[in-house]
């Protein structure tokens, strides 16, 4: 926790008043970073490296965001492990210790972020326990950022910044589906965000809804702890083991990507490898996938199929409706769980920003950005970490931050290149960086890491004039 006292206090003496007449303190060329999770930390580190002052606002009292289990919005549960292996997940210029396992535990991730913050001396720039309630563009491409103590205590305070990095994360606002009769259902209902420990499942009849990585993890734990476990999925999925051919599966895939093996070929190789090792899943009653592998967010879980094979997990189709004491499935079956866990994901939210700023004209909650980071018409704004990659997020967030820091610097030294960049943002907002994917609230910001990073590389090269 920060105990530093050398933090510059914003000066409350400025020319302009905010819209509601409070004084606005001018922070000059300082950049505001919203959130001190993985994306916010890497944004701070890279902005400081390029010579910018930063103020970071963090609603919680520690760094690590979603990966800090002490935070009330953290979605991690006791057994959360990485699903992409270490080389894909670490920051490219601050590797995780090589003595760590291929797939580290969430507590190791938190230790990693805390070490990153200390190593680069970031904590003294973070205002802990402070939440951002409004971010408004002002003339001259600056931003007025209004903050207050988390929980709404204390007065509001507005500061003017030269640029803003939005890094508030996208895995904290639970997405709850609506079902007919759910209100009358007498059993226990929870979202995966409040699932913390397998003891919550012990001895109960549990229905797990959703086959994301979280849903599969919870189903596996229910298989070991609950008296019965049903796992409801909308469609068939490819359950990829964490290891194939004796190596972390993503490393095998990237060896092929490095050779530029085309997608169809990789899909064929993947399908055959799975057929040879895991076998035909429909034999267990799992539905056949209606898509090719790499067309939905990858699920890395070696244990799910194992427990299905032991009969500890009963795969069932989608839920049709709830009754007071049971659940009716779309195939007409009736089951009677005591506990329903909705592992139905999260929705990104930017409550402090006018949706129009992020180009979300229709109010669908889907910003219209280039590289999932840059908003047309707002050259001093970047969203970092709004990605659902088929590998680790932090590597990608790092390069987004590097690109934004370089952009801000070149706005001073090479305005022509910055203007060309802004034109590109305008022209190419909404671009996608993955092969064909199934459309859903989870997949609209799905990216293929190589495709995405190639696009970032091109953007960086043109910015540097190389």
């Amino acid at each position, binding site marked *: 926790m920060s105990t530093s006292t050398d933090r510059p206090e914003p000066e409350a003496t400025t020319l302009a008043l905010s819209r509601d007449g409070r004084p606005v303190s001018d922070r000059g060329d300082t950049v505001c970073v919203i959130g001190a999770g993985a994306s916010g930390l890497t944004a701070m580190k890279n902005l400081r490296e390029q010579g910018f002052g930063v103020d970071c606002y963090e609603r919680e009292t520690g760094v690590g965001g979603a990966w800090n289990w002490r935070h009330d919005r953290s979605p991690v549960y006791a057994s959360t492990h990485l699903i992409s292996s270490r080389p*894909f997940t670490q920051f490219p210029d601050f590797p995780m210790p090589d003595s760590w396992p291929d797939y580290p535990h969430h507590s190791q991730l938190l230790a990693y972020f805390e070490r990153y913050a200390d190593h680069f001396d970031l904590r003294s720039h973070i205002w802990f326990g402070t939440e951002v309630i409004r971010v408004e563009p002002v003339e001259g491409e600056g931003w007025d950022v209004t903050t207050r103590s988390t929980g709404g205590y204390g007065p509001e305070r507005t500061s003017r910044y030269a640029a803003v990095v939005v890094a508030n994360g996208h895995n904290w606002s639970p997405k709850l589906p609506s079902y007919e009769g759910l209100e009358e259902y007498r059993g226990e209902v929870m979202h995966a965000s409040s699932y913390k420990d397998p003891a919550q499942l012990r001895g109960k009849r549990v229905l797990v809804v959703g086959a994301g990585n979280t849903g599969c993890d919870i189903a596996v734990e229910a298989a070991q702890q609950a008296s019965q476990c049903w796992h409801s999925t909308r469609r068939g999925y490819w359950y990829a083991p964490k290891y194939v051919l004796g190596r972390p599966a993503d490393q095998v895939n990237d060896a092929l*990507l490095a050779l530029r093996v085309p997608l169809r070929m990789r899909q064929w190789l993947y399908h055959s490898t799975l057929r040879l090792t895991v076998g035909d899943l429909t034999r267990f009653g799992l539905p056949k996938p209606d898509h090719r592998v790499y067309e939905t967010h990858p699920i890395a879980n070696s244990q799910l199929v194992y427990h299905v094979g032991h009969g500890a997990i009963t795969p069932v189709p989608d839920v049709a409706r709830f009754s007071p004491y049971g659940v009716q499935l779309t195939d007409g079956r009736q089951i009677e769980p005591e506990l329903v866990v909705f592992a139905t994901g999260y929705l990104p939210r930017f409550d402090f920003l006018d949706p129009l700023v992020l180009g979300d004209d229709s109010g669908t909650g889907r910003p219209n950005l280039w590289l999932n980071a840059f908003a047309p018409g707002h050259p001093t704004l970047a969203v970092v970490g709004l990605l659902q990659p088929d590998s680790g997020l932090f590597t990608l967030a790092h390069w987004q931050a590097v690109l934004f820091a370089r952009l801000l610097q070149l706005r001073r030294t090479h305005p022509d290149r910055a203007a060309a960049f802004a034109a590109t943002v305008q022209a190419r907002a909404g671009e996608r960086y993955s092969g064909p994917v199934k459309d859903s609230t989870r997949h609209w910001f799905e990216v293929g890491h190589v495709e995405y990073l190639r696009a970032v590389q091109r953007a960086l090269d043109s910015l*540097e004039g190389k």
Partner: protein
Amino acid sequence: MSKVRIIRGQEWARPVRPVRREVVSAIPEPEQGRPPLLFVPGFGHGAWAFAEHWLSHAVSRGFPAHALSLRGQGGSEAAARTSLRSYVHDVVQAAAGLPRQAVLVGHGAGALVVAHALARYPARAAVLVSPVFGGWGTLGAALRRNPAGTLPAAFGGRLRLSRAQLFSRELPDAEARRYVSALGRASRRAQWQLLSGPELEPPVGDPPVLVLGSPDDRVVPPAALNRVARRYGSAPLLFPGMGHDLMLDARWREPVDALLDWLEKEPVAR
């Protein structure tokens, strides 16, 4: 220098195999908030080369100091298929394991390892001491000075550095013999990579770089020293009369004091 390379397929798909690393550390009491130094020895040397004089001297001036042995040398575990990249991995791992942003100090071929590591770790500053950046010129110079010790290395054998290459005549004979007998061997692949290795990528965060050397160094000719310094936009700081191993030679105190003075003046490294 080439451009920043974001796609690192080879590094992602084939991570370097970890080994147990020897890091000799000396921390000043009380801690004075100075950046930690990480010393990286050249081929054949280990952490011992810095533990001899420089570590304790850095500590006496208030800098936490750590010396690493590259894999297969000094007290670090060896591993199969060791290459320049494995050495770079060792340096980046050791640097990232320190509590604060470190200053990397590389000697000899260790300076080349540090130069590569700068592209994978945002060092606060870097010091290249008698840097061996390789190339055919290095081989030529070594063959001229020490044909019997160098020739086997060109065919994958052991590189034997001689007393005359490493030290000045001022160093007492007994000490020189002790140091030469402590020399180990670098990986064959890494030795070859000195001749034509991977291209250097730009350093992360553009740290200040200082080059130290001696005009009387029999491993690094003055032209090579100037070339390395020019790459980082400076001129080398010279210590005439000293041999290649500035940290072990009789007047070891002068270069390390110059290095620490420079760090104290360099604003970003303070």
